[in-house]
């Protein structure tokens, strides 16, 4: 299940794949949500368990389940394993996730035995800020003691980062304020910060950051996030300008194949036919 280090995207930039026709697929009728969830889904190839919130992560997991990861199980923070919802859920605790689920377990078991126990392959996290090591801030903008904006805080994010084998981050905004040299506050540290604190991390931290500009990737301890793949029409300089640190670029930078007709059809007809999240 290893993905080549700096080549996470489907189509290599130097390949003979139909980059032109692919680029045309990224036409204005493909929404940002469709693009991000289709690309994130591909990154889940071969994974078994995903810890995900509602929205883009579950769209990606659902699409992956229908394509590259047929055995994929989504585990929800609320304690639901193996959900079979009758309707698209509105929260991670939606009643439709519970009815017909394979298992509903207490939160101490979910966090202790499942997550900390090492059963999650990929955790999806969001954040207000991310730095080059994949450390995340979801607590405050400004000083914690008198913040300019108080954000929700960790929830289970600190635990997902510490315990999932890898973490994927999907960011709708790719700008220097979100991709920052220095976090206002570190809510969920990657393994490098953990090691510096004398704590042995259990997972690799953030390995993929998926945005509308491309994919940043790192593999584990000691590595920075590097630009690994670009959406058609985007340049490495575009991404470097949108990133608040001196972003390194992978030698084998690739171009991402736009969402295929088949992926779009699955998203639109099977995963979210009422376009609740595909806005």
């Amino acid at each position: 299940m290893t993905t080549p280090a700096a080549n996470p995207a489907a189509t290599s930039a130097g390949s003979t794949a139909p980059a032109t026709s692919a680029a045309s697929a990224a036409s204005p009728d493909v929404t940002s949500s469709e693009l991000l969830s289709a690309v994130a889904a591909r990154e889940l190839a071969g994974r078994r368990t995903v810890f995900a919130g509602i929205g883009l992560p579950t769209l990606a997991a659902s699409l992956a389940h229908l394509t590259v990861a047929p055995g994929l199980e989504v585990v929800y923070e609320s304690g639901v394993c193996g959900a079979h919802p009758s309707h698209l859920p509105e929260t991670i605790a939606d009643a439709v996730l519970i009815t017909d689920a394979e298992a509903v377990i207490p939160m101490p078991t979910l966090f202790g035995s499942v997550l900390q126990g090492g059963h999650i392959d990929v955790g999806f996290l969001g954040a207000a800020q991310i730095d080059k090591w994949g450390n995340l801030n979801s607590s405050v903008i400004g000083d914690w003691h008198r913040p300019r904006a108080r954000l929700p805080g960790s929830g289970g994010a600190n635990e997902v980062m510490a315990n999932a084998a890898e973490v994927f981050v999907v960011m709708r905004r790719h700008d220097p304020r979100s991709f920052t040299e220095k976090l206002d506050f570190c809510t969920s540290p990657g393994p490098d910060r953990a090691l510096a604190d004398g704590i042995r991390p259990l997972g690799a931290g953030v390995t993929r950051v998926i945005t509308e500009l491309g994919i940043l990737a790192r593999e584990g301890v000691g590595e920075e996030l590097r630009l690994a793949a670009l959406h058609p029409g985007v340049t490495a300089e575009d991404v470097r300008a949108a990133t608040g640190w001196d972003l390194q670029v992978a030698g084998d930078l690739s171009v991402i194949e736009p969402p295929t007709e088949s992926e779009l059809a699955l998203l639109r007809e099977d995963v979210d036919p009422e376009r609740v999240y595909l806005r």
Partner: protein
Amino acid sequence: MAVESAVTNGPADRTDRTDGTDGTRRGDSPADKTVTMREAVAAYVHDGDTVSLEGFTHLIPTAAGHEIIRQGRRDLTVVRMTADIVVDQMLAAGCVSRLVSSFVGNSSAGSLGELRRRVEHADPEPLAFEEYSHYGMICRYIAGAQRLPFYPLRSYGGSDLPGVNPALRKVTSPYPGPDGESEEIYVVPPVNPDVTFVHAQRADRSGNTQVWGLTGVQAEAVYAARKAVVVVEEVVEDEVVRSDPNRTLIPAHAVDAVVVCPRGAHPSFAQGYYDRDNAFYRSWSAISKDKERLTAWLAEWVHGTADHAEYVAKLGEEFWEGLAVGEAMSRPVNYGRRL
């Protein structure tokens, strides 16, 4: 109790919770612990107390929070993993001086206006905030329930949280790590609320409480508390509970009072009873952002209702029909009977 008090520990002398001096407890069998919400809050919530309200998205004890507001409690420390609408309401009503939590937000639907005013602007007064992650809160309840001096967890390494929360500390393992070197791990301290409120689908009169769907951290929050109040959609006959003893999440010996309060979890939901009021969640961000609207809301819906039954009636039958759910019955299992 003949135990030397010098050597007791943990939740200060747990035995006092059931000595009968509070007038609600055992001695006779089977104990009927049913009381009204008004009685429960009057008996178990005092100014300055530490009060836990648990229920993760599901079965949030909203009606208990509203009654605490009606009775005008002050200077409370509220312990709740997800500080959401009910916490914002208690803050706005001036009940709370300290918050212990791991998530402060209106679910995924937006912000808590009052909480942000308190934290960002000390408006109208500062709020002491003790911040954890979800598992940190869970482990505090477990340590409280199990009279442990601390509980270890693989969180916080490298985080800025220990820098703003001195309760997050490290312990060195007495066993070598996988590389043969010594190993450090973060720990959290126990929490022992003066009282914990949880909402549940049903209980018998003595407090054996059955929950299905998401069970969150309710059992641990109850066992951690000095007093525990279970709020239920319905009280059922003993035979109903006893037909499925594995469904009992909280045994009677851990429960001090049972409050019957149908629809007491609104705007959250009770699996199999009524659905979540997502529209109210979406509307809360705007209500709470405007202090006047928020005050008016509390005046109308909390202070303006004598109890939760009035609140429910005020919402109206048509409203409740909109949250009604259909049937998806569990298949019975056989516990067996000796022939």
